[in-house]
């Protein structure tokens, strides 16, 4: 190496940052070059002075201020991520709960749909009531005379499940519970409605049922299919019989309505009742005769009549004295 090259490497030589070969060469050069020896001594002293320079101390608040800034940054970053994704230890339980909720909801929905009974499937009736209800009251008496109805001639009733299941979907059945004023578009609601009829059974009705049964001996001849029907269904239907039109008409005023399509008019009539604040206490939809037991405030009665008049032709209507207040019980027949 030339003298100039040696001088350029003196700084690195001081730091021991030269190769062994270069180190030996520089050493040899320093042995014979007084200028370079002076140069390296000056450099060494300069570096020593530089290294001895005192350091400044950080202010006591510096670390705190840095951490405050960093925490602000962390909070902003965390909020941003939190908006997008929860951390896994938070997200997992939330997802699990959501899945559980979906599964439970889906299960009950599926169960509700699968349990939807056929149109006229008989609901369960408490055993106590079954014992009271004689099996021969299975037939469903209608408010009109038995002769006017074809099914009164001893044929199996249409409440029979296998037959009814083949029927087209019936119009929405009203919900018989007082708290559920809206009509249900779903046939599944027919089951609770019938159950609601059961509590209306009164012991005094038993006599009526017996008389009725005696007056209709033809019903005692039941086909084998009817005999095979469950006792529960028979009992329920017998309970329904206790609300026979005769008994009801003895207690309630009746509106007779003539409609072209009784089945199709059911929904409109129930809707009319509920629209004017009426309450549906029960119903009996069978064959060509439909009964709807309602309770409505007297002031709304004319409006109900007006509405029913649009649905069909009113053939009979009870006369409610003007100025009558309070609730009145009615039976709408069509």
């Amino acid at each position: 190496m030339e003298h100039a090259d040696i001088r350029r490497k003196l700084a690195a030589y001081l730091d021991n940052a030269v190769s062994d070969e270069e180190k030996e060469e520089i050493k040899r050069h320093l042995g014979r070059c007084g200028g370079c020896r002076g140069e390296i001594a000056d450099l060494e002293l300069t570096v020593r002075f530089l290294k001895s320079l005192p350091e400044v101390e950080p202010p006591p608040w510096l670390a705190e201020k840095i951490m405050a800034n960093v925490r602000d940054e962390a909070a902003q970053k965390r909020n941003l991520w939190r908006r997008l994704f929860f951390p896994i230890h938070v997200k997992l339980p939330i997802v699990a709960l959501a899945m559980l909720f979906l599964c439970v909801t889906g299960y009950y929905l599926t169960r509700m749909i699968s349990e939807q009974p056929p149109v006229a499937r008989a609901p369960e009736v408490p055993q106590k009531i079954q014992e009271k209800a004689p099996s021969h009251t299975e037939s469903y008496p209608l408010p009109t005379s038995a002769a006017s109805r074809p099914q009164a001639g001893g044929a199996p009733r249409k409440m029979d499940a296998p037959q009814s299941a083949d029927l087209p979907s019936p119009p929405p059945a009203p919900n018989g519970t007082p708290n559920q004023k809206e009509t249900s578009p779903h046939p599944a609601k027919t089951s609770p409605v019938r159950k609601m009829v059961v509590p209306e059974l009164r012991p005094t009705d038993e006599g009526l049922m017996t008389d009725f049964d005696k007056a209709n001996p033809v019903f005692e001849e039941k086909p084998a299919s009817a005999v095979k029907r469950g006792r529960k269904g028979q009992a329920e239907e017998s309970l329904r019989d206790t609300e026979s039109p005769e008994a009801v008409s003895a207690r309630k005023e009746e509106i007779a309505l003539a409609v072209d399509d009784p089945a199709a008019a059911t929904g409109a009539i129930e809707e009319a009742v509920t629209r004017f604040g009426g309450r549906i206490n029960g119903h009996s939809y069978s064959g060509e005769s439909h009964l709807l037991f309602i309770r409505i405030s007297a002031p709304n009665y004319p409006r109900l009549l007006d509405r029913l008049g649009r649905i069909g032709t009113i053939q009979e209507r009870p006369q409610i004295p003007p100025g009558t207040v309070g609730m009145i019980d009615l039976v709408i027949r069509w």
Partner: protein
Amino acid sequence: MRDDRHNIIDEDAALVAAWRRGEISSFEALVRKYQKRMLNIAFRITDDYEDACEVTQDAFVAAYKGIDSFRGAARFSTWLTSITLNLSRNRHQQVQTKRRKEHSYGGPTGGENPAFVPERPAPGPSALEQLERRVVHERLLQCIKALSVEFREAIVLRDLQDYSYGEICAILNIREGTIKSRLFRARDMVKDCLKRGLGEI
């Protein structure tokens, strides 16, 4: 002092790993460990204590925000120093630009010449030994201040902060030969600056 860049054992690896996991206390430990070093680097580059404090804060916040870009190819201290040095350089340039504008409006104020070119020193290195330490330090600071930024960085990193050549290469992202050359010139200029002062005494 030599550093093998391909075989790095980072003493801060555990703290950095904990910090990556979200333990902010680990980052705080790193702050307390390196705040003084970063402040001194910033101070020697910006030559202003207030600016140095701000630069140090900004450097740590930038490190916190940019931890994902730290792959562990260098030591954490090296990475942090490069951030600090960049911010210090930027701040220094802003100040220089501002001063130039002020000078252009108010005329030359006779301050220090940033393009410092040392004169040939007077012979006799023994005279340096006669200087009082305090006087030497004051003179030394003036000499460092007179250096351009790249030479100042070399002096600050190697002689003031004792970084290895490998670390300086990583911090400045330049080759080792360039570091040696810059360091030689920087030391030579400082030495000449000191000798010039001493020679006139």
